[in-house]
């Protein structure tokens, strides 16, 4: 008899969730950050509905502080799958006076993304927002459901979550409320890389080791760019680095690495002793910073 391996099983589980969203909701949207997890999500969505087109648009919340490589890759992916792209802009939210820019050396637009995201969800009347969050990433995300209910303010109530049993998902809600849905909840970082390698998915160059001008702050390397306020004593130097996660330039750390291809990356992360979000300065603001942000509607 054929043996279903763990990647096949995870793939089938995620495809099941994606189809369940298309069946249970009227107007879903797929949140696309440009990172490997959302790239995986787009590939899985393509497989779930093949040969029909992906039946929901991609939504990118643009902080305006991107690695240029991210935008380039995003546009090529959208073209490849004939998908529809919607961009929610943090800059617009700032211009409209909905939020104001953080100041100081650690200023980041990461927190402001929440407002732009909720704004975009409301404007598009989306009733389900698919995201590529995984439970192994962070302790608050470990408690997340596949179908995660959000009230009319987009808030998450972690103490009052709907139970999920077998493969029965309850997407009922009142008008104005929505769901966040996380089809790849059960994947680990290693699973994602093994799958992307097996499927030979082309990836943004940022994930592979390259020379880059960086600064070092609180033990984390940050890419030097016009959006970071440098302290007077912070020096710019060149290192061979790669991104382990891709987010806003201002809060995504880069790693010293020699991994030039996917096989090297898999070797690197199966021996590393640091978690992938270890380089995210947004998580380091406090012990419960992810839980606090998620309650307010952060992705």
């Amino acid at each position, binding site marked *: 008899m054929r043996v279903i391996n763990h990647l096949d099983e995870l793939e089938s589980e995620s495809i099941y969730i994606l189809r369940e969203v298309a069946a249970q909701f009227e107007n879903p949207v797929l949140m696309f950050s440009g990172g490997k997890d959302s790239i995986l999500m787009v590939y899985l969505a393509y497989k779930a509905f093949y040969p029909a087109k992906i039946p929901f648009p991609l939504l990118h919340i643009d902080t305006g502080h991107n690695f240029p490589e991210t935008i380039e890759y995003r546009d090529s992916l959208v073209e490849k799958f004939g998908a529809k792209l919607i961009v929610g802009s943090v800059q617009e939210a700032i211009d409209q006076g909905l939020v104001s820019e953080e100041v100081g050396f650690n200023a980041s637009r990461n927190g402001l993304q929440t407002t732009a995201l909720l704004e975009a969800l409301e404007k598009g009347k989306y009733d389900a927002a698919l995201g590529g969050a995984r439970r192994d990433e962070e302790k608050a995300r*470990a408690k997340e459901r596949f179908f995660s209910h959000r009230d009319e303010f987009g808030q998450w109530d972690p103490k009052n979550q709907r139970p999920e*049993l077998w493969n029965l998902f309850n997407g*009922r809600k009142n008008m104005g409320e929505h769901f966040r849905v996380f089809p790849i909840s059960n994947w680990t970082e290693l699973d994602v890389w093994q799958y992307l390698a097996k499927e030979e998915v082309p990836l943004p160059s940022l994930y592979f080791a390259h020379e880059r001008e960086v600064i070092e702050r609180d033990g984390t390397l940050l890419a030097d760019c016009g959006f970071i306020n440098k302290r007077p004593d912070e020096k710019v130097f060149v290192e061979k680095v790669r991104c382990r996660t891709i987010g806003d330039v201002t809060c995504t750390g880069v790693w010293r690495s020699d991994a030039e291809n996917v096989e090297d990356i898999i070797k690197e992360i199966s021996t590393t002793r640091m978690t992938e979000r270890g380089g995210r300065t947004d998580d380091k603001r406090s012990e419960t910073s992810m839980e606090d942000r998620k309650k307010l509607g952060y992705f």
Partner: protein
Amino acid sequence: MSIKNTNSELLRFTTAGSVDDGKSTLIGRLLYDSKSIFQDQYEAIEKVSERRGEEEVNLALLTDGLKSEREQGITIDVAYRYFSTPKRKFIIADTPGHIQYTRNMVTGASTANVALILIDARNGVIEQTKRHAIISSLLQIPHLVVCINKMDLVDYSQEQYEKIKDSFENFASKLDVKDVSFIPISALKGDNVVNRSENMSWYEGATLMYYLENVHIASDHNLIDNRFPVQYVVRPYSDEYHDYRGYAGRVAGGTFKVGDNVVTLPSGFGSKIKSIVGPRGEQSDAIPPESVTILLEDDIDISRGDMIVRPNNQPEVTQDLDVMICWFDHMKSLVPRGKYTLRHSTQEARCIVKEIQYKLDIETLSRDRENIEIKVNDIARVMLRSTKPLFLDAYKENRITGSIILVDEATNNTVGVGMVI
């Protein structure tokens, strides 16, 4: 682990336990010894433990993710943890053990291949042990592994181990469990967890890790009775695929092969499988739990909620459900004449509670037919009637086509879960 080394199965197991039985220590050890705890995670919980004035690094902080859980020092919700060895990938559903969290234990048990039951070697079989075993049996977890823990505190006594094993076996004979194994361990010292114990040469069985890596799980799915609940109809509406109608879903039982004669429910129309499309293109057959798209030879009207089966092997088609319900709502009780939305496989219907037959005591298995007010965490046998026919199998035969959830129509919350008798 390399790219090629991806041919490993996925095993889901559940644990349940209270503060003192060593569950967190055991999970911590499995994660630590399989190198699944990262340095920055370890440093973070080391810092918190130190701040709280705890002597040792508290590994429970790894699984207790929410602020309120960390404040109270208890697991409230189901926490999912991941680790892998070269042989398998594991998902742990870690649940609280106290009676007031029965619903969380039931949730963790619903998808598990293995239930890991911990017994403190000093105390033997206690109420909580029985509760875990009964829930595992009700939820039909295929394999039970009973770890008799803290053997170091009873001088690694074989006599004590045999005594506890006998008493558990004696109790379990009343339950519907097929496969039970016993392992004497010390999670704290590491005996028989990953490495064989030098202190218990009298024990000749497997270590816990060996058991988890090798227990046969390929037959945990029903591979006999063909069941394909249609989840979504794929219609490309393009010139290239003009008449394409693909029935997408996840195989819930049996093996579907190209060329098979099939019947669709509820219409009863017959057809033949023309092709099966999986994530990597066409495939000759599909087995559980694969997500595929099935194309039929004939153009018949099929929509979400319908089921594709074999002509000579069909589920029961009925509006009357005899179910064991676990009640999840702490605001309202389950009452006769109560109306709910019901979800079964890919079907949705409404239902009414016709009769509550008895309440089950999950510590003694006794049936209470007098006091049948069903409150949160209670388990009861109930008769339901649905607004339309459902395609049911007994939960014992198929966990997917034999399970339902009930949704409160005012709050939209999932208030009950049921297993078809």
